[in-house]
């Protein structure tokens, strides 16, 4: 995969995006409604809440070959389920540091808060994450060859 990607000049990474249904998924929709363009790299998985996303799921995405992961939820205080994103924030803060500690490149696993009214911000995040992952190249660590 690595070599294949190197040969492909315009390699487009695949990034798994876990988006909470109430804010970030709606923000992604709004980006569409407003026609903000961003790279076609995201594969969005709709989850009820960022608090639904576990470390296991993020690792599974990497293991399955995702070049990057984005988890996005409501801004703190806006959680549809009152406090899900607060727990998520702790889980992710610890996980992100930890993954970077064992050598996963910073930029591979990303988190954001995007509200339902932040269409442009969603596109910005999509662009930013894609560009970070592109700079890093295809994921190599933790990828399981099936």
């Amino acid at each position, binding site marked *: 995969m690595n070599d294949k990607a190197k040969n492909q000049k315009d390699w487009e990474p695949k990034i798994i995006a876990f988006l909470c249904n109430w804010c970030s998924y709606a923000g992604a929709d709004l980006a569409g409604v407003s*026609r*903000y363009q961003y790279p076609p790299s995201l594969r969005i998985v*709709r989850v*009820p809440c960022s608090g639904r*996303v576990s470390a296991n799921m993020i690792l599974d995405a990497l293991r*399955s070959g995702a070049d990057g992961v984005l988890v996005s939820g409501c801004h703190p205080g806006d959680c549809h389920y009152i406090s899900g994103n607060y727990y998520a924030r702790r889980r992710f803060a610890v996980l992100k540091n930890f993954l970077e500690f064992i050598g996963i490149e910073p930029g591979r696993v990303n988190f954001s808060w995007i509200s339902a009214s932040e269409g442009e*911000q969603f596109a910005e995040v999509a662009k930013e994450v894609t560009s970070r992952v592109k700079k890093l190249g295809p994921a190599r660590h933790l990828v399981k060859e099936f």
Partner: protein
Amino acid sequence: MSTPKGSVLIVGGGIAGVQAALDLADSGFYVHLVEKSSAIGGSMSQLDKTFPTNDCSACILSPKLVECGRHLNINLLTLSEVLSIEGEPGSFRVKVRENPRYVDVDKCIACGSCAEKCPKKVPNEFDLGLGKRKAIYLRYPQAVPLKYAIDPEHCIYLKKPGRCGFCEKVCPADAINFKDTAREHDLHVGSVILALGFRPFDPSRLDFTGYGQFKNVVTSMEFERLLSPSGPCLGHMERPSDHQEPRKIAWLQCIGSRDINKACHGYCSSVCCMYAIKQAVIAKEHSESGDVDATIFFMDMRTHGKGFEAYYNRARDEGIDFKRARVHTILPAANDNLKVRFAGEDGKIAEDEFDLVVLSVGLETDPQVMRLAHELGIELDSDSFAATSCFRPVETSRKGIFVCGALAEPKDIPQSVMEASAAALEAERILHPARWTETRKKEFPPERDVHAEPPRIGVFVCSCGINIASVVDVQAVTDYAWTLPGVVFAQNNLFTCSQDTINQMAEIIKRERLNRVVVASCTPRTHEPLFQETLREAGINKFLFEMANIRDQDSWVHQDEPDAATLKAKDLVRMAVAKVRGDEPLPYNSVPVTKSALVIGAGVAGLTAALSLADQGFPVTLVERKDRLGGHARKFFRTWQGQEVQSYLQELAGMVEANANIDVHLGTTVEDVSGSVGQFRTMLSDGTEVKHGAAIVAVGAESFKPRQGRWNYLYGKNPNVHTLLELDQRFIKDDPGLKGLNQAVFIHCVGSRVPERPYCSRVCCTHAIDQAIHLKEMNPDMDIFMLYRDIRTYGKREHLYQKARSLGIVFIRYDLDNLPRVSETSGRLVVEVKDPIIDAEVTLHPDLLILASAVRPRDDVGELSKLFKCAMTSDGFLLEAHMKLRPVDFATDGVYLAGLCHYPKPVEETIAQAKAAASRAGLVLSRDAVPAESITAVVNAQKCTGCSVCTKVCAYHAVNMDANSQKAVVDTGLCKGCGACVAGCRSDAITLKNLGNEQIMAAVEAAMEDF
């Protein structure tokens, strides 16, 4: 009255109207919601964030609007105006004119092609003219209905038929109808609710503000739009003159409020102090540079609501500069900046320069609304707000017509929402015999059992006209779908959501014996319910369905990359197919309802709530810990409007005692509570077990008695020192000792807004001032001094403050670091305080010293909240489910709150809140069963370690430890399906139905498959 009509007219589609509509439609009444613009949402939809939680306004509002828009029993009439209302409570005839939209709402798919092509740009009123829209437009991105409208004032075609017409040519859905005309509707309803809201004060009347003269002087509403991500600068916060980010911003308070001179508005607009602080906080946060200097010029900082004072304190800590000063005139400075000159309290002049000045404009009634009120025979008060009285806070002068929101007085969102529910309650009270008589209900065929069947998946790929098809190769995607495992049918449709395609889909499901369906089209957020309903119509469980979002999240965002977008669409379809394969039929959960209520606390709130429910025929158990009815209000003399409380209270208690539906338990407390919404069981201390479907907590609060410490002021030591309520007692008794007094002093904020009790008690300013007026009227020659920190006579109560001043009552401001000092010389009280204006120590010799002491939460509220699994604030008041939009609900379904246990509030707000709580409880009690979430968590006991992480992270107390097995169990009646427990569980012992780890992994892995 013969049998009333079971329908209600609501005028105004802002948050108040929407809330009232939902409350009524969900409890058995048909609602006509009339809105004059092209979409509901009102002023709240224009706001960026809301205080004090900084919630995104559109985000929290949108779900309510969508619910309203989709509701089977709400008839949304946009672009409509009420022409006349004839009749009486129970039966009103209403004429409504619906103006033409020129767009067929059944056809419009809101793709936006029309607006893209429309050549006519006009100022966008939603952005208060700061941005532009087209002549064919969507009021705002999240508008409900999400349908375009043509503005006939600006449409080239409508002005000169034959010219332009581009929208018609480009519309893929054939939705443009230039021949549309106004329609008149004759509605027959039982009651009417007016929720017409307010308009922001126009400061161009005040030339000294420079508004309209200087570009960088904007109103607060304009600033909301400048902050908003959907606003004219996409949330980048630019100032109008040069589109640069302002670094230094000033807010000027009381523009168009508390001004009987040029603004002609003597009232306080109640919300401006808080929104100004919020804007300052948000501006600081928003700023890309990170350094915004924010200064707020004010006269009294009015942060009198729940969580407001803490917000104010935090804002101060974050460096927002609060200047107790008012600017006379805004002056131009170089670079389009603005200069202000102002005198501090010490009289010293200072000058400062700002990049942007925000005028905190007040709220006023729109003249159009005044005309309508006049035509409908609704009395307005001297401030042009709908006239109401304290004991009847949502009743207008015309019987059967109710009012809520800012039309009755300037107020914030939660108060408007409360009143909306209260107004709904009043309508229900009249119309309850006709409940469910005019509502509609959807019927479905029985569902096929698909458990044993292997997956037979059908995939429907939508072209959405050209919205998807112009970018994504939909045929290739359809062909690809055929190749996926389990897929037995795939088809491409022009508009999958069109009525004929929907009918066809149902046929195909039956014909092909599909047991799983995937639609690849727009977004589940708007269309999932529609397709799920189709599944039900075709006789399969609606949860056997997935959507692939190939429009909003694909074709629309990769317009220039058709190949990549097609590839992505295939991925998304594959992911959806992988996910749907694992979907199981889920139960449509519901909980049967015990149609009776428990009301805890028999003060004004509890009595009102109990009566409100009992009057609708619901049995109520009313529990009061004391041995008599009345609660805190038994100590009150009169309302701020001058109505005597005791006679009202007696009447209220009398009605409760006489009501056969109310079972009163005096001297009783709640010992234990079990069950959940619809099915509570409560043990009382008198041994009674009460079964009830809903509960209202109205346990009140206490008055703080400063027996010792810093706020003592000789209370309990000198006989002439009283609290407000003690003086009320003397008023009630008409104590002759109060005649012939020479001097009285009131000290405000005794024990409120202090470190140990950092909240504002909201009621004391008004109460103290009213008492001072009463004393002064008894003894016109008497001198009365009010020692205050900020006067917080919000709303129309400001008139009372003005009256007090006009009577010669003297107000002296003090600070926490410069407290009044109280001593006595041979029994005679001496009060010393510094007057900051003339910088002098003033010595007073009152005959009476009144302490406006705090309202404090009761100590035992914590135990009660635990029984009902309700949360508390750090101040010790009960915490509602959402500060803005669910002000009387607890996070625990079926439990509601009202009165002082929520936060200090005057009797009119208590009554409104109690009625709101009754209305919300009515949502449960009016039905045989309440729906519960289907996508719930489920525990695999074999794997569960009983570690209880899941119970700790569950915000709804839906996961608990089974006392026997010591394993987690989920109460499906409480579970909302958020999945916090699932992510927290290390053992994979708890999962979410149809959103389990395996299914998510399947989707993730499918995304990565190469093909």
